[in-house]
């Protein structure tokens, strides 16, 4: 095995380990964990069996077989980024709706006389402050 191959396999294994670490911590959703594990597996296969790349380059009439790999890698990155753009758009939309819905609910609570001060204003409310002062004395 050439040194570069050994290095790539090492990187792929590290990726897989990092992914497993975050899965165990419940911090990576299944769809993403499978994707990254698949990427790591693909890296290892393509490094160990160079024939796959050469076969693909031959079929696509590409003289320089690593170019096929570069293309695939770029395509993967582009698709992932687009996917994240979609996800971010969706999340910010939902975030906005939640904030609006919450403000409407709070306004309703207030008109029915149940709530007063804004709970998310920085710092403790006035009631909390007086309690803290009593403790200090």
């Amino acid at each position: 095995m050439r040194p570069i191959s050994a290095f790539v396999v090492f990187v792929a294994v590290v990726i897989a380990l990092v992914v497993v670490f975050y899965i165990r911590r419940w911090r990576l959703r299944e769809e993403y964990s499978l994707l990254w594990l698949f990427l790591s597996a693909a890296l290892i296969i393509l490094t160990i069996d160079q024939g796959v790349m050469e076969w693909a380059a031959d079929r696509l009439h590409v003289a320089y077989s690593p170019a096929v790999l570069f293309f695939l890698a770029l395509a993967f990155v582009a698709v992932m980024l687009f996917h994240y753009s979609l996800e971010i758009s969706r999340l910010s939309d939902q975030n906005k709706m939640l904030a609006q819905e919450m403000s409407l609910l709070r306004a309703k609570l207030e008109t029915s006389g149940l709530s007063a001060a804004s709970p998310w204003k920085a710092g403790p409310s006035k009631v909390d402050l007086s309690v803290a002062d009593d403790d200090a004395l």
Partner: protein
Amino acid sequence: MAEDRHTTVGPRGLVIIPAYNEARSLPDVLREVRAAAPGFDLLVVNDGSADETAEVVRSEGCAVLDLCFNLGIGGAVQAGFKYAVEGGYDVAVQVDGDGQHPADQIGALSRPILEEGCDMAVGSRYLAPERYEGGRLRRLGNAVLSRMCSLLSGQRVTDCTSGFRAYSPRALAYLAHRYPADYPEPESIVLLARQGMRIREVPVKMRERRYGRSSITGVRPLYYMTKVGLALALDVIKEAPRGREGGKA
């Protein structure tokens, strides 16, 4: 929401005032609006202000929507639209919290909605006999975008960036569902027109703001013009909503 005076017959109106750090100018604005439009309910949308905006509004005894973080003008005004829809108002007028918009013309702005069957009335600075000045780039940007809005909406638009507006229940229901996040004014004209709604401009005279500064200064009008122009062009290819919102995109 419903106060005693609204149990009597007659149209119910709401004034929506989006406010971001406007604690200094709000008391005057609220006073003016109350004096000029006594039949209207007032709603201030506090867009995650860091100053005393929420306290000032509450001490004035005015309804307030407190957004827990800053959504920007689009998200704030849209929260007001949702409130207006839930409250079943016959007309809602949007007035800036910085005192730029003349409160005494709230009535003139709501007339096309209540009496002429229009869906949105826009207070235009460029229809009034005394023309609004402002920077040259600003005027150029507004002129270009207004041309675009006229073309894309098929209705005459001279001041597409004006945020002094009145809306019909139908327009409110649509915008509560779909409203652009930043610089929503020009886009909403095209979106409503594409729903077959009628838009009318009303000449108004606006004032210089007393506190704070416009967010669109220097060469920013050019950036704004390009960005909003592109967004307007994209609105043309957007599908009409199919009554689904918030699900997986």
